[in-house]
């Protein structure tokens, strides 16, 4: 039980924050910081290795990879954060309803969750994108519709744990309504675990999108997502590996940073032992 371990956690978390800040900065400032527009083609310099003109090289159409990675950050971060927020909101609503009402309704709502939970995420996301389309909106919708399930389970568990607490009886005795109890008395107590799931939802959305885009059924091509870039690089793997390495590093670093940060928050904020959150 030396504090040394905690110190190491700090360092890793700090590095993650630095990486994520850099990615976020690149995402927000891409139109101003990027040396070229993401779709500008330079026919004289196709598949160039990194040099002074193109710091990270160019792809098959002569587009600057550094610029594309920055615009890709914009797409991935927007998608990840939006999905995580929507999923958390949906999950809170569903979990609260289920846990707070309890009884039959709870039973029914949970059976429904079990079905969704048992199926592989990616399978459901693929089926949903067939229906919702492959634009950014369709993608976010499909991802949110799948990833709220984890949040709902978590929230329901927390509600059941807190439901019989005396302070709730006190609040009721003082005349607090259902909504007041849910929002003022229950929700603030779950902030820790919720923040942890939120930080795990973002990378899992980014991961799912890039994976789908990589095999060609994710975001439709003109969008410069990291997965699309990797997909294009895949064709040139043998002789021009930099085209796939650049987006892969971006994806890996971002997801890793989010997960390390999530683990750190989990250790700090989650009252129960590690490994309870996440699937």
């Amino acid at each position, binding site marked *: 039980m030396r504090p040394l*371990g905690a110190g190491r956690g700090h360092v890793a978390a700090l590095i993650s924050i630095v990486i994520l800040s850099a990615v976020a900065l690149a995402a927000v400032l891409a139109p101003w910081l990027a040396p070229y527009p993401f779709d500008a083609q330079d026919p004289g310099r196709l598949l160039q290795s990194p040099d002074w003109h193109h710091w990270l090289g160019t792809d098959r159409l002569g587009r600057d990879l550094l610029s594309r990675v920055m615009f890709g950050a914009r797409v991935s971060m927007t998608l990840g954060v939006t999905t995580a927020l929507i999923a958390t909101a949906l999950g809170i609503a569903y979990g609260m309803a289920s846990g707070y009402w309890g009884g039959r309704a709870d039973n029914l709502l949970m059976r429904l969750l079990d*079905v969704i939970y*048992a*199926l*592989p*995420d*990616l*399978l459901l996301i*693929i*089926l*949903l994108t*067939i*229906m919702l*389309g492959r634009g950014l909106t369709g993608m976010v919708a499909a991802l949110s519709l799948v990833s709220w399930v984890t949040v709902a389970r978590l929230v329901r568990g927390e509600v059941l744990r807190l439901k019989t607490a005396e302070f709730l009886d006190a609040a009721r005795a003082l005349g607090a309504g259902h909504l007041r109890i849910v929002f003022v008395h229950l929700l603030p107590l779950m902030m820790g675990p919720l923040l942890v799931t939120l930080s795990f939802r973002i*990378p899992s959305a980014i*991961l799912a999108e*890039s*994976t789908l885009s*990589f*095999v*060609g*059924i994710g975001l439709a091509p003109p969008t410069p997502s990291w997965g699309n870039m*990797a997909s294009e690089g*895949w064709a040139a*793997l*043998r002789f021009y*590996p930099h085209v*796939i390495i650049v987006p*892969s590093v971006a*994806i*890996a670093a971002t*997801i*890793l940073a989010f*997960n*390390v940060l999530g*683990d750190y928050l989990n250790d700090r904020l989650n009252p129960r*032992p*590690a*490994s309870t959150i996440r*699937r």
Partner: protein
Amino acid sequence: MLWLVATMTFILMHLAPGGPFDKEKPLPPEIRANVEAKYHLDEPVAQQYARYLGQLLRGDLGPSFKYADRSVGTIIGETFPVSLQLGGAAFVLTLLLGITGGVLAASRPGAWRDRVTLLTATLGFSLPNFVVGVLLILVLAHEAHWFPPALWEGPRYLVLPALTLALGPAAYVARLTRASLIDVAAQEYVRVGRAKGLPPRVIWHSYLLRAGLPPVITVLGPTLAMLVTGSFIIEYLFSIPGMGRFFITAVTNRDYPLIMGVTLVYAAVIVAANLIVDLLYGWLDPRMRAGTERAR
């Protein structure tokens, strides 16, 4: 459960915009009508649904829209064994790597091997399948020439894809094994065992592993789900003629019967796996046999 999945995919597929025959060059209306009649696409949705369920009960998954000469059943029959081999190999690797890693890490919490395992596990969990796969192909196939980079022509072709597929789930299993063993190690009765001087071997075998490993079994369900989703990407990456790759192609082609058929097979596999896990867990952990408490 399977009926629910069948209904769900049926509804999703019918809500999807665009039909399977929109893609290629536009067909003259009379031919189009003929094609639609052949696949019963001209009937009302309810009738199609009833027909589909009826066929399912007889084990018929219907015709493929894209591969006119083959039925969905034939395609799955050809590709499923391939996926099963890949998945089976990856599953064994997952357990081997995951449990070994977890036990190694938990044997001395905080020591370097714990740190290394945890770091590897975090990496394994975070890196997307395709990034790991690309890395392995570049290093072990293109540079070192140890293994072939793609295709499916013998056991040597199995190594890289199975390893790539197993890494993520193995990381997950390792983390859980470690957490479970450390939980058990903190129990009073283990301390009593140590205090009365039992040799570490006995402590490990009779106490820690006996009590710490059964909970790991409960994650085999999610692990299997990870393997299934992983197989789409791995089979695409390594050009393996398995079910996952056909699924991806079917999605691109909007070949609805094939999509639904494959989804159903996956769902069936997972339902069966969860059932086995529940039974196995009850058998391994006597405390579970008495209660009606579900394993998860």
